[in-house]
């Protein structure tokens, strides 16, 4: 087995991983940094983010507003110290990207432009047309080539986190092209592997979004936090789940049901007019909009599509062809090529699909996980800024703000600690190698795709937009059975080099761990908050007295063990979460007195 030595190893080459690598390399050019990614970094799923990234710039906006939008949007499950740090650093990161060449859309005076997003009081979403994630990722990736101290291990699949003396000290990676194992020893490890949306059937995510980093940490004894909170994005393509950005609504798009009625006004988001209006109707938060769809479907007011999925209409026609081409070119392309719909002529059929995991590896506001030497940033992490529902355009900003912190913190940690004994680490790596090779050699009766699809369906059935104890229990039972089935999967491909079926089997192992953490955390949270909504008696409303707490799912030999941890509240005590006219009233009652008290 090849052995490599670095100061910092970063797992994941998306926005957060690249930002971390650049930060560590800038902090100390003498540090040797490894960036390990199972795909070429520019293929990472950051590439698919469309609408934009948050950063306060307008004179009428403020860090207070960004803080309040985020905490309210998260239904008060956010760690407010992390949110304060976050909002204070978003804008400088947007400017940093600008200095690195990100082609932000501009105002006529040459300044970067901003647009509105859901649940946002004042426009603060920086955007590069509707290709924001693509441009951010390529900007970061290409900029990373400036730093000779960053060694990229492209197309290397991480199959184990190496822990010794109670510290994360490296990873074991499989070179995809050859199937050879490499032990990467390092003084600190950053996990930046993104989310886990592929555990659900209908999702916006790329095939690579399989929760690898979350599962690596979980298997090393790190509990996963707030895993029950999974975001359904309300406007996705029926069948494939491909994303139509929230910027469609930010630019003025409306949602109508089969009768042409703007149904959101029936779900506490109205009144419908005047339009557009921030924090109301189509500019409400994602959880509320997806929940409204669910009710419309129950009422029989949605439209059947050829894929067999119900939908509503996303109507952009009134924005005009020229505006659509300028601001939403990718949306036009997706609608035309995948659906044969010209959005200037016809509404786009859309429905909710799984988009984002709010929970993940718990970290403090400086990205340190409970395992010393381990840092996490981006969607795989739960730094605490999203609470029970993430606000649109906070995740791209998060990649930068906390990716940078993770890179710097890991660099500091690596400089302050000795390396593990390589021979001890190597024996651990050999055990991990044997485990990773097992699926290649064992015989069995199960088919990989069937187990994977059964998992995705069980998650959708039991852990969807609305949940019940009974449904979640059934999903938990199915997942337990599927873990047994997964151990009996027979592969059709037994070569070591470029065996993507083998790697998919390892990914499925990760996915099942993450799915179980989600379902069991959901079962334990006997209330409704943000993206976790329950229909069973006694659980249909938010219950701060019992559940203003984070869940922590810990791995055991059997089902995950669920425990609880405190939410950090610094300045915004839990209040009423409302949008539309009700939201304006709630803001008067809640936010304004706090602001006054703070100013007094």
């Amino acid at each position: 087995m090849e052995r490599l030595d670095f100061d910092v190893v970063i797992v994941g080459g998306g926005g957060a991983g690249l930002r971390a690598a650049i930060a560590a390399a800038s902090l100390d050019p003498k540090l040797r940094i490894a960036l390990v990614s199972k795909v070429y970094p520019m293929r990472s799923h950051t590439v698919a983010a469309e609408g934009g990234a948050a950063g306060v710039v307008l004179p009428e906006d403020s860090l207070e507003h960004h803080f309040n939008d985020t905490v309210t949007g998260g239904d008060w499950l956010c760690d407010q110290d992390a949110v304060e740090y976050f909002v204070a650093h978003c804008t400088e990161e947007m400017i940093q990207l600008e200095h690195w060449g990100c082609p932000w859309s501009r105002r006529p005076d040459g300044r970067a432009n901003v647009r509105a997003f859901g649940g946002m009081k004042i426009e603060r979403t920086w955007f590069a047309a509707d290709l924001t994630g693509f441009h951010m990722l390529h900007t970061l990736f290409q900029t990373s080539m400036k730093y000779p101290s960053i060694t990229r291990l492209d197309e290397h699949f991480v199959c184990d986190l190496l822990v010794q003396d109670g510290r994360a000290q490296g990873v074991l990676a499989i070179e995809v092209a050859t199937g050879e194992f490499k032990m990467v020893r390092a003084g600190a490890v950053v996990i930046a592997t993104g989310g886990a949306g592929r555990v659900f059937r209908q999702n916006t995510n790329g095939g690579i979004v399989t929760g690898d980093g979350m599962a690596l940490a979980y298997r090393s004894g790190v509990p996963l936090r707030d895993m029950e909170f999974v975001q359904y994005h309300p406007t996705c393509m029926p069948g494939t789940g491909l994303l139509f950005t929230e910027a469609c609504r930010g630019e003025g798009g409306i949602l109508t049901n089969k009768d042409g009625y703007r149904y959101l006004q029936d779900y506490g988001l109205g009144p419908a007019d005047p339009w557009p209006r921030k924090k109301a109707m189509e500019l409400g938060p994602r959880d509320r909009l997806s929940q409204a769809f669910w009710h419309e479907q129950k009422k029989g007011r949605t439209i059947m599509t050829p894929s067999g999925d119900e939908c509503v209409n996303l109507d952009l026609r009134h924005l005009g062809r020229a505006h659509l081409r300028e601001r939403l070119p990718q949306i036009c392309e997706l609608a035309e090529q995948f659906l044969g719909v010209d959005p200037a002529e016809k509404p786009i059929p859309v429905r909710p699909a799984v988009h984002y995991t709010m929970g993940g590896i718990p970290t403090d506001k400086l990205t340190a996980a409970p395992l010393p030497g381990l840092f996490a940033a981006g969607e795989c992490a739960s730094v605490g800024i999203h609470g029970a529902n993430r606000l649109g355009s906070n995740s791209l900003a998060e990649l930068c703000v906390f990716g940078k912190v993770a890179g710097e913190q890991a660099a500091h940690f690596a400089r302050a600690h000795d390396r593990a004994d390589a021979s001890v680490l190597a024996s651990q790596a050999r055990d991990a190698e044997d485990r990773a090779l097992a699926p290649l050699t064992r015989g069995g009766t199960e088919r990989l795709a069937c187990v994977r699809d059964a998992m995705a369906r069980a998650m959708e059935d039991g852990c969807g937009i609305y949940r019940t104890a009974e449904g979640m229990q059934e999903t938990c039972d199915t997942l337990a059975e599927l873990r047994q089935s997964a151990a009996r999967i027979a592969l059709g491909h037994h070569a070591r080099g470029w065996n993507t079926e083998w790697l998919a089997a390892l990914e499925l192992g990760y996915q099942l761990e993450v799915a179980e953490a989600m379902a069991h955390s959901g079962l334990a949270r006997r209330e409704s908050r943000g993206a976790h909504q329950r229909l069973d008696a006694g659980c249909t409303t938010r219950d701060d007295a019992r559940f203003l707490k984070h869940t922590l799912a810990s791995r055991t030999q059997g089902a995950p063990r669920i425990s609880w941890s405190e939410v950090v509240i610094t300045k915004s005590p839990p209040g009423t979460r409302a949008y539309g006219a009700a939201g304006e009233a709630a803001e008067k009652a809640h936010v304004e007195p706090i602001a006054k008290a703070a100013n007094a």
Partner: protein
Amino acid sequence: MPEARNITIEVLRYDPDGDGPPYLQAFPIEFTDDMSVLQGLQQIKDFQDGSLTFRWSCRMAICGSCGMMIDGTPSLACRSFLRDYLPGPLRVEALAHFPIERDLVVDAGDFMAKLARIKPYIIPKEVKPLSAGEYLQTPEDLERYEQFSHCINCMLCYAACPQYGLDNKWLGPGVTALLHRYNSDSRDGAAGERMQLAHEPEGVWGCTAVGYCSEVCPKAVDPANAVNQNKTKSAVSFFARFLGGE
């Protein structure tokens, strides 16, 4: 549910561990009209032959992973639809002009090395601290390079370029478009440095102006246009040097 139809996908298989040359294997599949070629390949991998190997991720023509030859044309499998190849069979092969690693997977190392060579990052004309805010760039300034920044690195243009097929030393269309992207950016001050690469025999002069690269580009980057603009620049600067003007 939409009606299912049948089509056969012929895939060029290559096993680096075996001794044989690449060979075609036919897989009959059932498909619906909304299915992409990528979904067809996934169906084969899931239910017929787990060893069929290809790269993919986003499914929405932005990650650039799933470039391959479909009926001889460099294409992204995720945004090519099976219905457009009826009655079939359709033939799927690895991207032309690259070494094959397995089945539809090619070695992208050459492209990645070339990308690094052009210094694909801003080397600022004027350094300013973050506290001074963003560089001003009007929509017109942005327009000068924006199209060239849309390259998703899918390498279809390399598979389309006959010159690259003959001699892969030349920089190639996609990387030249990115060179032009940085040189045309009002924030950048290193055009002279990058133009050295364009002047070289392996630079823009490797291109014989076939223009097929721009036809197959899924993002309308128009690399042929970038190459041509740089031929003009390269020629002008050559004569300027000849006349002692530079």
